[in-house]
């Protein structure tokens, strides 16, 4: 069973390495989007550090959302997705592989560069640590939920905006608790509650999203 997962994971990672622009585009969008806020809001440190958790989280959300289009579209266009649906391995398993590869390419880089951006916006060390952890737990949820949206909108025109419309309402709880975790740490309360809830979202999404995505893929390709 795991062989199918490994195969898809290795394939998608190889494709991502051969086309680094996809990964780098997401990363650069994240950096640029966060950098726009000091320019727009003004450079006062207090204001910036106050809005920093929300800004970084929203930019991570938007970056994750923009990268969703390429999760299945290339395989859909050349017929590989159909072959995956016809394969003896369960489609949900193959979807898990694709989502993992997508997260490694678009979510993990955000987690790694977030502390730098947090410093840019004036967050202290404790908050930076919790920011990284909240993003580490939250970005896989974004990839999992986004996979459902990406699968529902396969091959449609106006896909990017439509995915946003579908996926952003479902992202809102993750945003609330992710940014809330960092705010809680800054207010001196613990972030355990927020992080626990984020972890619960992760478990819930990991159980239900692959199956839902497989169903959505089957709807889209027939």
């Amino acid at each position, binding site marked *: 069973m795991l062989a199918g997962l490994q195969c898809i994971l290795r394939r998608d990672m190889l494709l991502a390495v051969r086309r680094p622009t996809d990964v780098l585009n997401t990363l650069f969008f994240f950096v640029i989007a966060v950098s726009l806020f000091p320019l727009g809001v003004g450079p006062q440190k207090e204001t910036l550090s106050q809005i920093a958790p929300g800004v970084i989280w929203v930019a991570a959300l938007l970056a994750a959302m923009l990268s969703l289009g390429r999760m299945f579209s290339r395989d859909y266009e050349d017929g590989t997705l159909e072959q995956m649906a016809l394969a003896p391995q369960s489609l949900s398993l193959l979807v898990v592989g694709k989502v993992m590869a997508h997260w490694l390419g678009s979510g993990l880089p955000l987690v790694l560069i977030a502390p730098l951006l947090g410093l840019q916006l004036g967050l202290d060390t404790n908050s930076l640590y919790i920011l990284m952890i909240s993003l580490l737990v939250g970005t896989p949820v974004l990839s999992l939920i986004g996979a*459902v949206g990406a699968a*529902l*909108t396969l091959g*449609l*025109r*106006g896909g990017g905006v*439509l995915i946003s*419309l*579908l996926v*952003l*309402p*479902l992202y*809102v709880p993750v945003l*609330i608790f992710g940014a809330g975790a960092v705010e809680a740490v800054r207010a001196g309360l613990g972030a355990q509650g927020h992080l626990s809830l984020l972890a619960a979202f992760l478990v819930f999404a990991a159980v239900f999203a692959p199956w*839902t995505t497989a*169903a*959505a893929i089957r*709807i*889209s390709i*027939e």
Partner: protein
Amino acid sequence: MSSSGIHWFKYSSPASFYPVAGRLIPWFTALAVVFGVAGLYVSFFVAPTDFRQGEAYRIMFIHVPAAWMSMFIYVVMAVYATAGFVWNTRLSSMMARSLAPTGALFTFIALWTGSFWGKPMWGTWWVWDARLTSELILLFLYIGYMSLYAAIEEPRRAARASGLFALVGVINVPIIYFSVQWWNTLHQGASISFKNAPTMAASMLTAIVVMTLCFWMYSIAVVLTRVRAEILEQERHTTWVEALVREQR
């Protein structure tokens, strides 16, 4: 299966349901008007002035029924979408599609009237607490459902894709409902419960219930009208629709 009596499954065919819906609409419209007049009368003239909020609280008689309907319609929409998945009936997805705009309207009314109530009562038009945020998400889910349905040209794929999306979003409805229990929110908790006696005056409860019935009858009338239009559009290549169009000319 008895051989006499109503053959219910016959009405899952759009061609059979179309005339039945047409005959039902006037009845539900009449009921909506009757309940509406009665409800508004009780709301404005019978329900007493609230000792803390004065007269401004009366917007509750629109706000609460609209909020209940927004959640109820979403669940009904999800049920119809599931029925469309399970039994592959076109009419189920047509009903789901027809329910969405009415649900979105009630969600908007709930949010809008809630703002009008919030200003005199809490001093603010809006607050990002759990219940208001999740109701706003419900509005976005309705809009997402309608956009997805409209974006896909092939009707069967459109129905199934948007039905799946509606099912994914249905988890939001219990979150809205229980949000006032799970979090410390600015929005007040439930005053009406099946287990305890209501904490408000009987006439206020009557007004809320009558206005809810009014909105419910209105929803049925409007949804049946919309589904008739949906049937005509999706079945336009069938002989019965062509005959209907010809005799209308």
